[in-house]
């Protein structure tokens, strides 16, 4: 009697590639054998004796631990016209991601155990690992904490009210306290919404010229500043700053890190690539929250990506339907898709243009994010870890065409962009989940 096709992957030998595994301090030619969903062996070329049912020829390619995206909106439950777990994880696989952490600002908000379980159910047909992040407050309304214990038990890897900040001082303090007891990170969407009402882009010369209300960078920095102070005061609390976008917020994060507080942060590819002025004449594919910032903010982010202040690159993949974007700029939905362009942007912008080493870029996609949410057995390809790997060609030149995107949505500013660096294959649990043609 045939067993379910999903139960076991054939063993896979990734042969001839160059392994970059920053956590294991490996940057050398290595063969990798994956068996039963785990890493069975990592050895120099042609040293692996054990046979494999399948082989992947990785000559000329970089093999890395599977990429982890700490910040995606897959829109289920409730908004499957924008994206589904199935379509979003297909886009993730195409972008080299083997694990994604889903944000809870769905309809309804993921604030109960049942929804966390629902998200992780095999019926969602996820192509990569899905780690739900649960709401920090009930309905993400910011007034009463959710049941962290139950949510964590059901599989939530962190809590957040993303899309909105946890604004109230007492609530934030309570969240960090409870998080500290459970070793559960609290993810903050740092925006003092009292300062950003009706704003649709960064406050600066461009917003003034376009006649759009601008979000001051202080609205982000002040919240990060407060949160870092709280995190310093509450022993063992874990604060993670989502989609950090300003130089001033980075200063606060550095302060926390110097004080040995457990403060981490992520940066998106669009914030290290684009500027507020790229909004052009009201192109809503350049509208996101936090908004594209000034040149000095981007410069500070590039420095922080290089020097280790930033822990992870996260996409903030935020799909929206055309009718939500083809409207007046001020009415358009915030957010862009990002899963399929993240690695290409990192290699093109960070490595090619700014000379950040590939090892550091791989770290920002693998061991960095794995540490932020304690994703055990991931972020490194050492023996016994999960058989998740990302194989890419750092020199391949290609053009991104949104028409070919696996996402259900098309809201990207990068359509037609020429990139250096392309995902060749994505291996999830020892199986090839994506292979470029």
């Amino acid at each position, binding site marked *: 009697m045939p067993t379910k096709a999903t139960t076991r992957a054939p063993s896979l030998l990734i042969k001839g590639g160059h392994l970059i595994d920053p956590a294991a301090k490996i940057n050398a030619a290595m063969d990798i054998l994956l068996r039963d969903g785990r890493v069975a062996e990592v050895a120099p070329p042609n040293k692996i004796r054990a046979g494999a049912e399948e082989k992947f020829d990785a000559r000329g390619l970089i093999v890395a631990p599977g990429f982890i995206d700490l910040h995606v909106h897959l829109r289920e439950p409730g908004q499957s016209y924008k994206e589904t777990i199935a379509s979003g994880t297909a886009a993730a696989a195409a972008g080299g991601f083997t694990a994604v952490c889903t944000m809870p600002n769905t309809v309804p908000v993921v604030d109960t155990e049942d929804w966390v379980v629902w998200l992780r159910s095999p019926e969602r047909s996820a192509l990569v690992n899905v780690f739900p992040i649960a709401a920090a407050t009930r309905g993400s309304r910011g007034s009463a904490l959710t049941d962290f214990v139950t949510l964590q038990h059901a599989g939530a890897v962190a809590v957040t009210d993303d899309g909105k900040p946890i604004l109230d001082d007492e609530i934030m303090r309570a969240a960090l306290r409870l998080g500290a007891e459970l070793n559960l990170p609290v993810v903050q969407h740092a925006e003092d919404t009292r300062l950003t009402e009706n704003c649709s882009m960064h*406050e*600066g*010369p461009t917003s*003034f*010229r*376009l*006649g*759009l*209300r601008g979000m001051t960078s202080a609205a982000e920095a002040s919240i990060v500043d407060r949160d870092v102070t709280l995190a310093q005061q509450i022993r063992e609390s874990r604060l993670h700053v989502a989609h950090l976008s300003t130089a001033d917020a980075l200063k606060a994060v550095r302060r926390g890190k110097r004080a040995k507080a457990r403060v981490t942060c992520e940066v998106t590819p669009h914030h290290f690539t684009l500027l507020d002025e790229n909004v052009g*004449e*009201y192109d809503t594919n350049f509208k996101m929250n936090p908004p594209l910032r000034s040149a000095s903010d981007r410069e500070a982010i590039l420095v922080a990506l290089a020097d280790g202040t930033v822990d992870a690159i996260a996409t903030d993949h935020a799909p929206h*339907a*055309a*009718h939500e974007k*083809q*409207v*007046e*700029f*001020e*009415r358009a939905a915030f957010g862009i898709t990002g899963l399929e362009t993240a690695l290409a942007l990192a290699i093109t912008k960070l490595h090619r243009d700014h000379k950040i080493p590939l090892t550091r870029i791989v770290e920002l996609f693998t061991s960095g994010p794995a540490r932020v949410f304690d994703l055990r057995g991931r972020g490194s390809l050492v023996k016994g870890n999960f058989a998740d790997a990302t194989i890419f060609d750092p020199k391949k030149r290609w053009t991104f065409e*949104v*028409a070919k995107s696996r996402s259900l949505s*098309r809201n990207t500013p990068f359509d037609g962009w020429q990139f250096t660096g392309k995902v060749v294959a994505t291996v999830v649990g020892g199986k090839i989940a994506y292979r470029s043609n």
Partner: protein
Amino acid sequence: MQRLPFFAMNKPPRGSLLGIEHMASEEILDLLKLARRMNPLKARPLLRNRRIVLLFYEASTRTRSSFEIAAKSLGAITTLVQSSGSSIEKGESLLDTGYTLRAVGADVIVIRHPSAGAPHLMASHLDIPVINAGDGMHEHPSQALLDAFTILKYKRSFKDLHVAIIGDIYHSRVTRSNCHLLTRFGAKITLCGPPEFVPEIASTLVPGLRITRHIEEALRGVDVIMLLRLQKERLAGQKIRLQDYIAHYQMTAARLQLAKRDAIVMHPGPIIRGLELTAEVADGAQSVIVDEVHNGVPTRMAILARALGKAK
């Protein structure tokens, strides 16, 4: 991606007027020249049977009526569509409204909208010219053109003309358009108002803009004074006391003395007597406020003729 109708295109259709910022200098001068040849009382029916839709999502007296009279003087048919009483109230999107108006046979859409960039959105999806009659805080190009037309009736050229713009610069689309137009031709502009209305960032709009908080400093020796309407609710929002604002920034006959003797006083309207200016100034010999309204008609005749390729 939502499939666009067959007539969709991405560049603004020829003849559109979306803003002054990206308009070529010669185009501006040609329009002003054409406006001088337009006489609403003796107009040739250049636009006979052309259909011009006035799509107004915001209240307007001057702009709407002068576009309508300009269109009708040239023989065009006009239709007014307002947000209340139309499908806009039922939630129809801006683009769908545009497609609908195109389908009923509009040859030009003149649009006023509270959101910056709304005319640009429409222009990038339609194949007929779109005229911006004011979009949010962004631009009001026909006002800047009629202001330029008015200035040239009283002054020989824009070169080295000293202009003071006083009031709520931040919210003012008229100011943005006027700054783009006047500095292009060599005028020197000083913006004046409290920081809440004239943020430092305003000086980045065009090169050479000067900011002062003191009306006396702004007025000394200027050729042109442009006043702006003050919305009381905005004062409240910025926590400025009305009495303080009047004390510091109201245009009075005494302050007018600081300007050149032949300085003109302009205002895009509607004016609120006793607030941003005294009745004495509004009705005084140096006020050209009514003339501006008057000049709106030939200027908009020129804009519409250009839109439909009848500018000659």
